[in-house]
């Protein structure tokens, strides 16, 4: 019972500085691992069929008549893709965040390292592919004739809905099982505080403002693809540069924040997947290119500032 409650604590301990048992906090019980695989594998197969072979589960759809005066205008909403995405997300989350059979501080550390690593790989790849699409035109799809590089970004953001999780799963299991009888640690390197943190921070805030303004100001709107690509990189710089005084405790807070950001992001994505359809889901997908990073930065900055405040109070 207490194991199940562990996960519920996520909602209530936001920002609470309690690192005594932090290594195994916020994880599902071990049996979720099997449940996860049972959801994930059919999800991947269904996703492949519906995405590449236009397969739809018979009867799994509704017809909407947006205009009652015009009976020929019928919009059919299929749910197969949403189901596949929901299965994949829930599956990976359960597999990745269930306790190992022998869960200890090292497996928890490896999980978090793999998580941080997968963020780096996924968003570098996203950024590079978008840059290629902008510079040389579309190399993978035929979207360019309709929407240019922006169409390509939409295509990419579909993959982005679950690619971080897949990279993470591969990396995590590689670190755990690649060596017989021993774990791999998967060292991470960070950029120094100065000047990278400031560059990442100011550039990201500036670009994100432009990103939000793009709908209102047509001139900015024409550079939307470029803004999204640059924002992808600048957020990475921000996330991967150290704090001014970064030690073991701060690094721990960093890793925990990323785990919580992921929980929050994919819970939100599941809700969006169920309740948001049509054009709104496109905007939702674009936002998903940055949401993990933003949730992480908010949570991390929040606990870091809290720590600094407590430090000041202790001195006074």
């Amino acid at each position: 019972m207490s194991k199940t409650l562990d996960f519920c604590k996520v909602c209530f301990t936001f920002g609470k500085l309690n690192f005594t048992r932090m290594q195994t906090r916020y994880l599902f019980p071990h049996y979720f691992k099997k449940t996860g695989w049972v959801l994930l594998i059919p999800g991947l197969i269904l996703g492949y069929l519906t995405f590449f072979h236009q397969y739809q589960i018979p009867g799994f759809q509704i017809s909407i008549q947006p205009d009652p005066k015009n009976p020929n205008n019928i919009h059919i909403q299929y749910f197969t893709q949403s189901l596949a995405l929901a299965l994949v997300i829930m599956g990976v989350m359960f597999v990745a965040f269930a306790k190992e059979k022998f869960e200890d501080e090292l497996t928890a550390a490896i999980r978090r390292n793999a998580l941080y690593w997968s963020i780096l790989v996924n968003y570098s790849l996203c950024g590079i592919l978008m840059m290629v699409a902008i510079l040389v035109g579309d190399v993978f799809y035929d979207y360019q004739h309709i929407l240019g590089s922006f169409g390509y970004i939409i295509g990419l953001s579909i993959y982005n809905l679950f690619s971080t999780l897949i990279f993470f799963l591969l990396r995590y299991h590689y670190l755990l099982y690649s060596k017989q009888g021993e774990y791999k640690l998967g060292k991470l390197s960070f950029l120094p505080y100065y000047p990278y943190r400031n560059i990442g921070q100011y550039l990201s805030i500036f670009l994100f403002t432009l990103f939000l303004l793009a709908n209102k100001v047509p001139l900015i709107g024409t550079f939307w693809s470029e803004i999204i690509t640059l924002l992808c990189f600048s957020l990475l710089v921000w996330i991967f540069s150290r704090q001014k005084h970064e030690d073991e405790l701060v690094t721990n807070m960093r890793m925990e924040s990323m785990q919580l950001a992921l929980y929050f992001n994919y819970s939100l994505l599941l809700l969006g997947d169920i309740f948001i359809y049509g054009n709104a889901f496109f905007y939702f997908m674009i936002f998903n290119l940055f949401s993990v990073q933003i949730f992480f930065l908010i949570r991390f900055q929040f606990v870091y500032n809290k720590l600094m405040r407590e430090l000041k109070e202790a001195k006074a």
Partner: protein
Amino acid sequence: MKNSLRVERAIKNITQGELAELIGVSRQTINTIESNRYVPSTVLALKIARVFGKPVEEIFILEDED
């Protein structure tokens, strides 16, 4: 940081698996610590020291570069 875990285990004549079970971690974790690639938390180091009945400093030793 280096450690004398392997030696201590030999003296006490217990396997990695037995030590892992005593302190509630996986055998791979003990192995990764023994090969000096993972620095355990204070809690884990204290638990290990308690198993061998020695102070922590006798099992885990700081090196110059730490």
